[in-house]
């Protein structure tokens, strides 16, 4: 249990006052539905860019990735470099011009403009369910953590954090969520910075870390790892057995680097919404590129301390008792908590805990604000109360619907959090299932943007079939050693078959291949059926939505650092350099 002093609490309270203050200041600007749900499309590129990366830096990500650092070592950086940067560059240069230029207010609405109502409806409903689930799971984790680490009451932690998020998103809508994400970004970076500094000092820098890890890594039970396995990225990915990730280079490159990451970064509205809020098309294109710069360096902040913890926990087992190492159920997710407790004196400890709280809130507020927009525009306005001729009256109506949805969204999240507490496995399972929609969704949006022949019927069937194939694959295969149906094999079990179609060495490999099959199915069916069905949309209607039908406007930018291609090259070169340095 962590012990906090008055100064730690003072820091926490001041932070919350600023968070609420930002909402309060923005309140007077929330006069239209567009201001509330789309941030009035007025964000400077750097603000939206930091929010873009901050939304992704939720607490479950921070805790999970530090834990992964301990579990998989430097191989965890694949999620930050190959598994993020190419997709972010692609989103910026090739997709943002259409997302932003189409004037769509959400990803589902883009599907409506490019394809048809049913494709939008399918995506909107799945997305709405997914965001509430994600938000509920993250709130449950927050309350559980506050309870076990700080001794706060579970219910009080849950409701108090929900009310704070509700207050600032209700007051200032998406703008408030975005501005607060920028504030959260800085507090997460600064609050966690002492960990990596102190950890590297104690182990004697990167060289010392390698030296200390060698004897531990080479003597790991049941494995034959080379001494530098945990401090390299690609070196031991020639086969599955040589690295702790359990995936070979092809799976990392294609499964993670292409299907999973393009599915996540290029179609997840939670992320794309930040770029859509930018003040201009030029700014929207820059948003993912600006976000990519800090993204590449986050591993040093959260993964490297996790790697150091491998050695630290071997020499100070008492300080890392909270991780339950050496038992059947280690809690790697608590690595960052153990490190906070191990290194930070009173004062900085308050800042570190505030950073964690901030990251929980940024994830929650992100989900609530994205849910809000999709519900109000893509479900309510499309199916329940369509727009009328009275524009001003409509706007007022949708603004109040947006505000009420914020409250309902938070209440639904709280309900989901309690369900997660009772049926945690089912919630994780549902989240895995809903995440499976990303890969086929990317296939459908990509084909829609770059091939004008793609039809609405084909896209709908492709999306649905991709999702069903993902379910089928997950239900017929299991990761090695799995003893629960929530990790796969549930169809096998239901049908009473005696064995699964395939047993993957690790869960991650199973996830990669689920995504690959879903993606391939969606591509083949969408392409095939597009030839078989008639295009319902005229070329004129597809202008601004499809690459070949959109007139290219040459915009001259004076400053070299404002040119998207130059920024993209810089980002790409840094990523490749980092990959080579830590090869």
């Amino acid at each position, binding site marked *: 249990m962590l012990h906090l002093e008055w100064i730690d609490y003072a820091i926490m309270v001041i932070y919350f006052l600023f968070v609420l*203050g930002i909402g309060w200041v923005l309140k007077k600007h929330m006069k239209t539905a567009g201001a509330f749900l789309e941030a*009035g499309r007025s964000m400077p590129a750097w603000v939206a860019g930091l929010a873009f990366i901050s939304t992704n830096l939720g607490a479950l990500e921070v805790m999970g990735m530090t834990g992964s650092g301990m579990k998989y070592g430097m191989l965890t950086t694949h999620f930050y470099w190959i598994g993020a940067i190419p997709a972010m560059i692609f989103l910026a240069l090739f997709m943002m011009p259409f997302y932003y230029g189409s004037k769509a207010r959400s990803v589902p609405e883009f599907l409506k403009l490019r394809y048809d109502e049913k494709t939008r409806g399918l995506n909107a409903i799945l997305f709405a369910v997914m965001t509430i689930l994600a938000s509920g799971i993250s709130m449950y984790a927050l309350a559980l953590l506050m309870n076990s680490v700080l001794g706060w009451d579970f219910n009080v932690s849950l409701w108090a954090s929900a009310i704070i998020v509700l207050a600032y998103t209700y007051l200032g809508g998406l703008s408030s969520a975005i501005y607060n994400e920028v504030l959260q970004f800085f507090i997460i970076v*600064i609050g966690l*910075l002492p960990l990596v500094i102190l950890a590297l000092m104690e182990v004697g820098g990167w060289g010392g870390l390698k030296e200390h890890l060698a004897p531990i890594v080479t003597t790991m039970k049941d494995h034959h790892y080379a001494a530098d396995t945990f401090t390299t990225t690609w070196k031991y990915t020639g086969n599955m057995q040589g690295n702790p990730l359990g995936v070979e280079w092809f799976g990392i490159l294609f499964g993670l680097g292409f299907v999973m990451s393009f599915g996540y970064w290029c179609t997840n509205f939670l992320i794309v919404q930040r770029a859509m809020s930018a003040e201009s098309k030029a700014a929207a294109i820059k948003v993912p590129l600006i976000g990519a710069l800090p993204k590449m360096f986050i591993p040093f902040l959260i993964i490297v301390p996790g790697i150091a913890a491998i050695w630290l926990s071997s020499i100070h087992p008492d300080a890392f008792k909270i991780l339950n190492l050496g038992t059947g159920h280690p809690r790697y997710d608590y690595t960052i908590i153990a490190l906070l407790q191990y290194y930070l004196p009173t*004062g900085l400890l308050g*800042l570190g805990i505030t950073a964690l709280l901030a990251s929980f809130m940024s994830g929650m507020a992100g989900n609530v604000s994205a849910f809000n927009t999709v519900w109000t525009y893509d479900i309510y306005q499309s199916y329940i109360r369509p727009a009328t001729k009275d524009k001003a009256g409509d706007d007022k109506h949708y603004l109040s619907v947006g505000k009420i949805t914020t409250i309902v969204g938070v209440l639904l999240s709280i309900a989901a959090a309690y369900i997660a507490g009772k049926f945690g496995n089912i919630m994780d399972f549902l989240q895995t299932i809903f995440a499976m929609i990303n890969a086929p969704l990317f296939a459908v949006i990509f084909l829609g943007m770059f091939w004008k022949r793609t039809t609405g019927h084909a896209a709908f069937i492709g999306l649905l079939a991709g999702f069903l194939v993902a379910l089928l694959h997950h239900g017929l295969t299991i990761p090695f050693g799995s003893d629960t149906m929530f990790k796969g094999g549930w169809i096998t079990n239901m049908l009473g078959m005696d064995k699964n179609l395939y047993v993957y060495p690790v869960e991650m490999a199973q996830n990669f291949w689920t995504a690959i099959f879903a993606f391939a199915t969606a591509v083949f069916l969408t392409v095939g059926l597009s030839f078989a069905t008639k295009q319902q949309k005229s070329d004129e209607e597809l202008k601004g939505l499809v690459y070949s039908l959109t007139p290219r406007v040459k915009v001259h930018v004076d400053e070299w650092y404002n040119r998207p291609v130059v920024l993209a090259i810089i980002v790409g070169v840094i990523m490749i350099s980092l990959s080579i340095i830590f090869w």
Partner: protein
Amino acid sequence: MGLDIRIPIGLMFSIFGVMITLFGIFTNSSVDMYKKSLGINMNLWMGIGMLVFGLFMLLLVKLAKKDEK
């Protein structure tokens, strides 16, 4: 939209900076407290760092306002 986010960032980190720096100065003699952070008074150093960062943000705001005029 009506808010320069650098102002709250600058203000908050300046306040944190002053608080943590002062706390670091007052607790400087407490050897026990800083045993954790390898004998370094991390409060003092991080406090100064935050103060500098906060003031830098506020300076940027000031320069931007000057530009506008």
